[in-house]
Every structure is written in structure tokens, then in C-alpha cells.
């Protein structure tokens, strides 16, 4: 309680915005229905990993339209965050050849390189003010999932993350797909690099249709998969003598130059790499693809079962090339986006980052290592999901007894509890910095709720918190005060209200 919330806002120069804001929320709720925060808060709620005090200030000062515009078309790279990434995780800037030479000269082992990418990914998502960009990076990283624990992938994924996913996360789906199809990491992960005219490997071809573009019911047959695999023979990775090492290379000598037909479109004999590029365009332009991508976006940002009309509205914004910002704007224009009943269960990554951002935690380099441990316990370390689907994005994939227990424990650990039950003052989550001299159990609870849940609780839930605070409120003026605040925050983070976006 050394730094009050007032001071925090003065420090960040956001006092005016904050004053305008905190009048809303829990305290305005009397009996029965809780009055939620303003509808535009859904932009922060749905389009971020968790609402940081600075996000609220930015939305309030600029208004929702300008805020969204900056989120979609602004710099996208938070200078302070990127400066830290550069210093803390220098391998993120390196090419495949440079990474390989680090390993060859025994300056680093592949696991360290992979670790830098995982830690940088979580750090950026926790700290960047361009939250929607980081959220979309995560979305596409799962859509074009690459498992990070297999041989050269520990190096190549660094390049894929930078040059495919982050370069196109808020661009066009066409550019993203073309880049992904030529990504050495993807070609290795789904085995296309070794597919030749003598015996093609259909792994990438199948997942390209099933998971990346058309969807499993998108209207293709097994013959189409074979034709796609033949078209993509020779799409491979340079090995020094055959193209730059670790870069995309087209091997004409292993390419199948025969005629192929994919869903009625004939690719005449004699074509090389250009028929693969044309095929990717065919897939981008197929109506099943926009339907599939729009559905996944709605499932990510609205609920596991979005309304048909909502998906249609988003699919309509596809445009010529799969315009990602336009689809996100369309999402934010649907009624369902502002419907509190359409709720989305937090995945473990959302849960951990949500705690960090709502508590305004400043993550240090060494703490990024702790975050990996937390995510490992919860089962969602970045790029650590072996099947090509990417991590599940529905409640059924995450809600379980083990899932809840681990979340409750991660909240306790983050708030400073050791496994021996001791409380450490110096922990990653320090919610006491958010308080502004509360005078009653109600004020204490409401101040925490304002920051951690932003209105996402009902009167009954609040009552449970208040009665918990009442029993121990006298502690607040003693050395035990910290324990009470941490325990209340633990209860809020462990509560069902925080399990949903």
C-alpha cells in the first residue's frame, strides 16, 4: 500500500482519464443486477490478454474508434518492450544461418534459442500496449501451429515467428498464407520439405486444406489432397549446396511437372513453383476459407458458439485478399461483441497474462522464466503443442478439475505464496499498488474489483468477497494487511468471474 492508485495514475500522467472512469463499476451497483462497465470496454476485454490500467486510460482519452485504429494500424511495436526484447533475447533478430552458426560454434544450444522465443513471446504479450496485435500473433501462431521441440524447428520457428506470423498478423490472409507455405519451419514441421515426385508426402497438403484454409468440411476429396501434395513437391529448404541454408528453396528436380486438378481447377503440365502459388491463391479465394477463418475469429473473440449472423458479418469483410483488420473491425461492429452473455473461457495463456496485466505487473527478464514454468503447469507454453491444430480454443479443451486446481495455485504462487505456505512480499503480482487508502471492507473489495475485473461480477459474487474482507478487515492496519489484500486478489483470480473474458 506504499504506492496508491492515485500515485500510479499521476506517474503515468493519466489522472484525468482515471477520474472520469472509476466512478463507474461496482460501486454503482446496489441490489440485484450489477451495472457493467461501458459497452466499449468490450474492446479492451475481448481484444486484449487482460485490461491494464493504461489500456483503460488510452481508450478513455482517445475514444473507441481512435483507440481501435491505433491498435490495428498504429506502430504495433511498443518501443520500450521491443528495446527489452532486443537486449534480453538477441536471437530473435537472427537469420536461420546465423542461428545455425551459433549452434555450430557451440555458443548456444537449440533449447536456449527456443527458450528465448518462448519467453519473448510471453513478455511481449504481457507488456505491449498493442494488445490486439499480440493477441492476433497468438491467434495465427496457433492457426499455423508449429511444434517447437523437434530438431531444427527450435531454430527455424524463430524465423517463422518474425517473418511469417508477426509480419502478417494484421495484414492480409493471402500474404500470410503465401508466407507460411514458404516458411522453412512449416515445411519441416509438416514434412513437405522431403516430398518429391517419386513419392509425395501428403502431410502438409492435408493440413493446408483442413486446418489452414478450407476446413475439414470445406469441400475437398482425397484426390484433391494428392493433387495438392503433387503441386507442392519440391517446396523445400536450402541446405547450402542447394539454396541458402535454412531458407525456402524450390527444387525443380524433385517437382512433379505433370497435370493436376484441384477441386475442378486444372493445373496444366509443365508448371513449376508458380502453380503452387496459384494453388494458394485458389484456396484463399474459395468461399470455404473465409467462412472457416471468420468462424475461428468469432470463436476466439466472442464465444465457442458464435451466432451464424455474426460469422456472416465477419466473413463479409474478407475483401479481395482476406483483410484481417477489416474482419476485426467487423467483429467489433456486431451486436454479439457487446453481449455479456456471449462469454469466452480464458485459456491458460489468457489467465496468466490477464493476472499480470490487470495487476499492472512489470515483468523482468528473469521473471519471463517463471512465467514459462507457470504456463507449463497449466499446459500452454507457446509453440509447445505437438498436433497441427494448435492449442484448443474452447472451454471443453481447458475446463477440468486439474485445470482449475492449477489456476488457483498459479494465482497463489504469483501473489507470493510458496509451496510451504509462506508469503513473500516481493512477488510478480502486487495488487496492493492498485489501492487508494480503502476505509471499509466494501471499499477495499471494490477498489480491487475495479482493477482486476472491470465490472465483470454480480452482486452475489461481490458479497462473498466483502464478507471475506469483513472477517479480517482489522488486519489492514497491521503487518497482516498485505496478506489480506493478496488473499482477496487470490480469491478474485481464482473465482469463476476471472475464468471468463
Amino acid at each position, binding site marked *: 500500500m506504499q504506492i496508491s492508485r492515485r500515485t500510479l495514475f499521476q506517474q503515468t500522467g493519466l489522472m484525468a482519464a482515471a477520474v472520469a472512469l472509476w466512478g463507474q463499476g461496482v460501486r454503482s451497483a446496489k441490489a440485484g443486477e450489477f451495472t457493467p462497465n461501458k459497452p466499449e470496454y468490450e474492446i479492451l476485454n475481448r481484444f486484449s490478454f487482460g485490461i491494464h490500467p493504461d489500456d483503460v486510460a488510452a481508450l478513455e482519452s482517445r475514444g473507441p474508434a481512435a483507440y481501435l485504429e491505433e491498435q490495428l494500424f498504429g506502430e504495433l511495436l511498443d518501443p520500450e518492450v521491443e528495446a527489452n526484447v532486443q537486449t534480453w533475447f538477441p536471437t530473435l533478430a537472427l537469420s536461420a544461418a546465423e542461428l545455425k552458426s551459433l549452434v555450430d560454434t557451440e555458443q548456444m544450444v537449440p533449447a536456449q534459442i527456443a527458450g528465448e522465443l518462448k519467453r519473448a513471446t510471453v513478455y511481449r504479450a504481457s507488456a505491449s500496449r498493442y494488445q490486439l496485435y499480440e493477441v492476433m500473433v497468438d491467434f495465427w501462431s496457433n492457426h499455423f501451429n508449429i511444434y517447437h521441440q523437434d530438431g531444427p524447428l527450435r531454430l527455424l520457428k524463430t524465423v517463422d515467428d518474425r517473418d511469417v506470423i508477426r509480419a502478417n498478423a494484421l495484414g492480409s490472409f493471402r500474404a500470410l498464407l503465401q508466407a507460411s507455405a514458404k516458411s522453412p519451419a512449416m515445411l519441416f514441421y*509438416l*514434412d513437405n520439405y*522431403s*516430398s*518429391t515426385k*517419386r*513419392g*509425395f*508426402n*501428403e*502431410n502438409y497438403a*492435408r493440413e493446408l486444406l*483442413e486446418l489452414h484454409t478450407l476446413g*475439414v468440411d470445406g469441400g475437398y476429396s*482425397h484426390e484433391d*489432397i*494428392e493433387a495438392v501434395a503433387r503441386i507442392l513437391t519440391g517446396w523445400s529448404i536450402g541446405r547450402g549446396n542447394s539454396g541458402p541454408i535454412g531458407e525456402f528453396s524450390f527444387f525443380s528436380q524433385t517437382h512433379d511437372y505433370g497435370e493436376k486438378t484441384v477441386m475442378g481447377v486444372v493445373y496444366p503440365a509443365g508448371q513449376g513453383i508458380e502453380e503452387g502459388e496459384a494453388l494458394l491463391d485458389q484456396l484463399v479465394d474459395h468461399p470455404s476459407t473465409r467462412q472457416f477463418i471468420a468462424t475461428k475469429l468469432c470463436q476466439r473473440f466472442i464465444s465457442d458458439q458464435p451466432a451464424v449472423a455474426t460469422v456472416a458479418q465477419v466473413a463479409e469483410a474478407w475483401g479481395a485478399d482476406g483483410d484481417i483488420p477489416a474482419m476485426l473491425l467487423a467483429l467489433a461492429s456486431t451486436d454479439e461483441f457487446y453481449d455479456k452473455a456471449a462469454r469466452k473461457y480464458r485459456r491458460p495463456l489468457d489467465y496468466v497474462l490477464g493476472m499480470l496485466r490487470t495487476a499492472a505487473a512489470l515483468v523482468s527478464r528473469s521473471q519471463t522464466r517463471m512465467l514459462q514454468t507457470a504456463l507449463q503447469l*497449466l*499446459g500452454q507454453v507457446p509453440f509447445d503443442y*505437438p*498436433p497441427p*491444430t494448435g492449442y*484448443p480454443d474452447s*472451454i*471443453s*479443451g*481447458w*475446463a*477440468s*478439475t*486439474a*485445470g*482449475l*486446481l*492449477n489456476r*488457483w*495455485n498459479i494465482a*497463489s*504462487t504469483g501473489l507470493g*505464496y*510458496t*509451496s510451504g*505456505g509462506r508469503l513473500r512480499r516481493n512477488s510478480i503480482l502486487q495488487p496492493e499498488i492498485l489501492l487508494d487508502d480503502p476505509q471499509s471492507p466494501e471499499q477495499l473489495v471494490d477498489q480491487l474489483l475495479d482493477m482486476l475485473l472491470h465490472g465483470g461480477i*454480480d452482486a*452475489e*459474487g461481490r458479497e*462473498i*468477497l466483502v464478507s*471475506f474482507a469483513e*472477517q479480517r478487515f482489522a488486519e489492514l492496519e497491521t503487518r497482516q494487511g498485505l496478506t489480506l489484500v493478496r*488473499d482477496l486478489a*487470490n*480469491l478474485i483470480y*481464482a*473465482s*469463476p*468471474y476471472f*475464468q471468463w473474458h
Partner: protein
Amino acid sequence: MVNLQLQTETTESLLLAATQSLQGNMIVIFLRGAMDGMHAVIPAGDSNYASLRPQLSDSADSAIPLDGFFKLHAQLEALYPIYETGELAFIHASGSPDDSHSHFDAQDYMEHGTPGIKTTEDGWLARALLQTNLTAPLQAVAMGKSIPEVFRSSRLSAVAIDSVADYGLVHPSALLHLAIDDIHQQDDALASLSTSTFATIDALQALDADNYTPVNGAVYPNSTFGQQLQDVALLLKSDLGVHAVNVDIGGWDTHENQEAQLSGNFQQLAEGLAALYLDLGSLMQTTSIVCMTEFGRRAYENASDGTDHGHGGCMFVLGKGINGGQVLGEWPGLTESDLYGPGDLEVTTDYRTVLAELLIKRHGYQDLSMVFPDFELPSFVGLL
């Protein structure tokens, strides 16, 4: 529309038919990613085998003869003694009748027990449990962090346990624990999950998992899978009412460099199963262990010394008292006209036939119309 009706009927009939009892225990080991049955139980006696798999058939040289036609991959050696005593059977060319080559659809179909029907929302093992009079909160346990589709049901609370020893709360205050459960009762979707989590904590903490010692010389592999199997043994030996268990093991999608990948996987699988079998001892008289996978792999190898997605696979069943020591099922052959679809091993035994034989002849079920709706039972493969 048809499927919606099916759901309603299923629920109503379940309420009427809740009279059967699950005798013993059913352990499902799901090999996710499509395990190549032809690389595990090698059809070395089929004259077409070596020409379809010129590279991969090298593994037949070191394999262990099972019956003059089939050979067991050398890295599955730990299973051979159990096969020899007749307590392990392989059911070859088995699988789902649906010809999906998508891992994710095929797994769902198989676990829901209704191949080809996407709208089924519950798992076959959950339906089987709901037909019984079992009430223990831990009757269905999924080893891992999440609940697999086989246990999916709005009416069954399967419990997910990633580690018995670590299943406890970090926060020291019982007051906070109470408040956590209390506040979860405000949320319809999570209320029972919270209750069940606290019940599980209480039950598991009494087990003293840290001091568990496997018996009969069982040595579990040093891996997550091995740890989970050891936890399964601990749970089944305890008095917690655990009857159905699912354990997942991944890493079977071997499009490339298959021999190297499968060698490691086979060894871990075989050593784990053998340890669990030994450790459970006489409990294996009433316990069935079934290994299944979403589909088998292409009969011919691809250009990367691997295999692409196929159809017919191979199931493993372990249990004392089964007609083991043989490879069951009808071998469909590997000539071009024998192969199915793009060149796959045909499915000659529906996987539900195998499960049905176990449920009826070993676990006390009479009627499986709710467990496998619209499935007309063909003749059994002779497991029991």
C-alpha cells in the same frame, strides 16, 4: 435433425436403463496421432508387405515372431511375456468404419462412439458409466490436464488428474479454500467442477502418493506417461471407486523417419503397459487395458521413410482371463485390390466390436444400445 432426436432418446433411455453395473475396471490408452499398426504388429508373412515398404520392412528382421505370420516390433519386447502367457491380444485391421483421414474428426468419432456423426456430444465411456449405479466422484479419471472426449457428458463429472502427488492447494488458508468453492457456486458452468476439485483434493491427499512403491517388480518408464500409469495403479488399488481411466500418449503421426520415431514410442508404451500390468497383479483379473488409435497408416511407405494417414489399425487388449496370445481379427491382405481407399489397410473389425465384447463378456453389460447407438453388433472376435 435426426441427430438431435438421437440425443434426446439417448438421455431418456439412459434414465430408464440405469440398472447395469460396471464390473471391474476399464483403462483406455489412446495413442493420439494414428499409430501404425503394421509397424507394431508386422504382417511379415504377407508376400506384399516388403514391396509396399521397402525401407520400413527392415524392422521385420529384428522383430519377434508371434504366430508364423505376424511379428512384434523389437521395441515392443516388454509386452511379449504377457502375450506368451495369453493375457495380451492384438486385434489387427481394426478401427473405425468411417473413412475420415483427419486426426481430429477421427478421434472425436472414435471417442464419441458414433463414427461419422459430428453432432454427438458425449463419449462412449461416459454413456457406459451413466448406465451404471456408480456414484463415486472419482469413477472416471482422465490422466492429464483436460477431459478427453471419451468422458464428455453434461451428466458425468470426470476428474482430470495430472499428478496424484501434486494434487493439492498451495495457499495455506482453509478459509480461502472455502471462499473459493463458495464463489464458484455462483457460476453454473463451473460450480460442480469446483466441488469435484475439492473432493478430489481430499481423496488424493489421503493416498500418500510420494511413498507409493510398485510391486511385482514393476518398473515404470521415467516419463510423464510412466508417472501417469503409476498413478493409475495407485488409484485402482485405493478405495476411491475409480472404475474408468483414460491415458493419452502422443507422438504417433510418423510421416517421416518412422522407424526412429516409433522405436522410442514403442519402448515407452511397452514398458509402461508391462509395468502397469505387473503392478496391478490380481486386479488384472477384472481390469481391461485397451490401446486404441484414431486410424492406422497407409500400407505403403512415402518418400520420407514414413507413412501417411490410413485406415485399418491395430488394437491391444490386456487382461487376465482373455483369449490372448494371438492376433485376432481377419487379415484383409495387401494386394492392390485388397487395399482400401488411397492404399490403406482395410478395417475388418469395427473397434466397437472389441469394446462391446469386453463390456458384455467381462464387465457385466447386457445392453449396449446406449453406449453405441445404431450399432448392430457383428460376431465377436473371440477375445473372451
